[in-house]
């Protein structure tokens, strides 16, 4: 059915695009879940003492690195097959 409608090249390109989207999307959801607790704790600490602003922000963005990995994978996919 697929063979009849699109070429192999287009199919691979499509799969790569979906993969790239999933890589960024799922990494984003994971990072968000991780950040919810850290963010809540950081806001709590900052509310008591403004001195925790820098440290709180730093800890909150640590799970963001996972999204960067996802982004890198998506770039690799897009450059290799896009």
């Amino acid at each position, binding site marked *: 059915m697929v063979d009849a409608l699109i070429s192999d090249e287009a199919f691979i390109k499509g799969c790569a695009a979906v993969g790239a989207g999933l890589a960024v999307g799922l990494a984003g959801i994971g990072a968000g*879940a991780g950040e*919810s*607790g*850290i*963010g*809540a*704790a*950081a*806001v*709590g*600490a900052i*509310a*008591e*003492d403004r001195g*925790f602003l820098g440290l709180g922000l730093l800890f909150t963005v640590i799970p963001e690195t996972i999204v960067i990995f996802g982004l890198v994978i998506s770039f690799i996919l897009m450059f290799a097959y896009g």
Partner: protein
Amino acid sequence: MISRTKAAYAYIVARTKVMKSRLLKAEDFRKLLNMSFDEIIRFLEETEYRKEIDEVGYKYSGPRLLDYALASNLARTYRKILQVSFGEAKDLIREYLKRWDIWNIINIIRGKNAGVQPEIIEETLVPAGEFGEEYLKSLIVKEVEEIVKEMEGTAYYEALSKIGSAPMNVVEDEMYKAYYRRIVEMPAREFETKLFVNFIKMEIDIRNIKTILRLKIEGSSTEEILERIIPGGYELTEDEARKLAAMSFEEITKSLEGYWFWREVESITEELSEVEVNFDKAWISAIAKRASNYPLSVLPVLQYMVLKKVEVDNLRILGWGKYYGLPNEEIEKQMVIL
């Protein structure tokens, strides 16, 4: 949903951890022990107690100023914790703070019975429980019978209705029994609620063992001790407490081996202040361990609340002791310094 609950705990735990870092340290207390009463007040003006001392500094002086500042700071701190918490944590903290309703009502009734001026009764109040400051103030101007009537429908009515026929300490004990019963019988479906209930049960253990030993030292009869036992302990069940109450002081200390609190206390002499302080220390170190085992629960918040109460009590002992010129060693013996 899971992360939402955890986030609620993360927020309140982080806040109380910062608040905990601002509590007075053991070195501060050692420094305070070498100061005069006025120097202690000046020192406290540089700390969290500044607002309260400034508020009433023009009106009061001496230990009365200290008492008022400490009581209102404690109430403000507890109310703040309740205000900034949410979800299940808030419900549990609210339950915990209801003990201050008993404190306030008993203080009002005792004050009324002794003919104390309303302003002085007002100074002893810690409006951190369910009953707000205004409501408590409205109770102060009422007669004792009216106050009891006002409590109709609450968990304390049954105990309060014994006023007149039973001594006040019995009424107070009954009220605390009603408070603890309600928490111990709480349906602990969630893990966090279970932790809270166990925390309260451990507190009951400490209260019971302190009562047993204190009354033994004072030479009370077994029946008198039994009347004051709070049911629902963690390891020290009511039956075991009954057995202990019938023993002599030496036998009790031997029988305590194996209980969670005895691991911290290990040995004890027949001195009242030692019994109080050592068991308080055992309690504090036990909750510190449990709070670090379950960091995302209500335990670190309760730990802070207990430590804050200990700090306020220490400062009160220190202030009064210094004001009346007690020797440092005597004051230090009464204080719970960690």
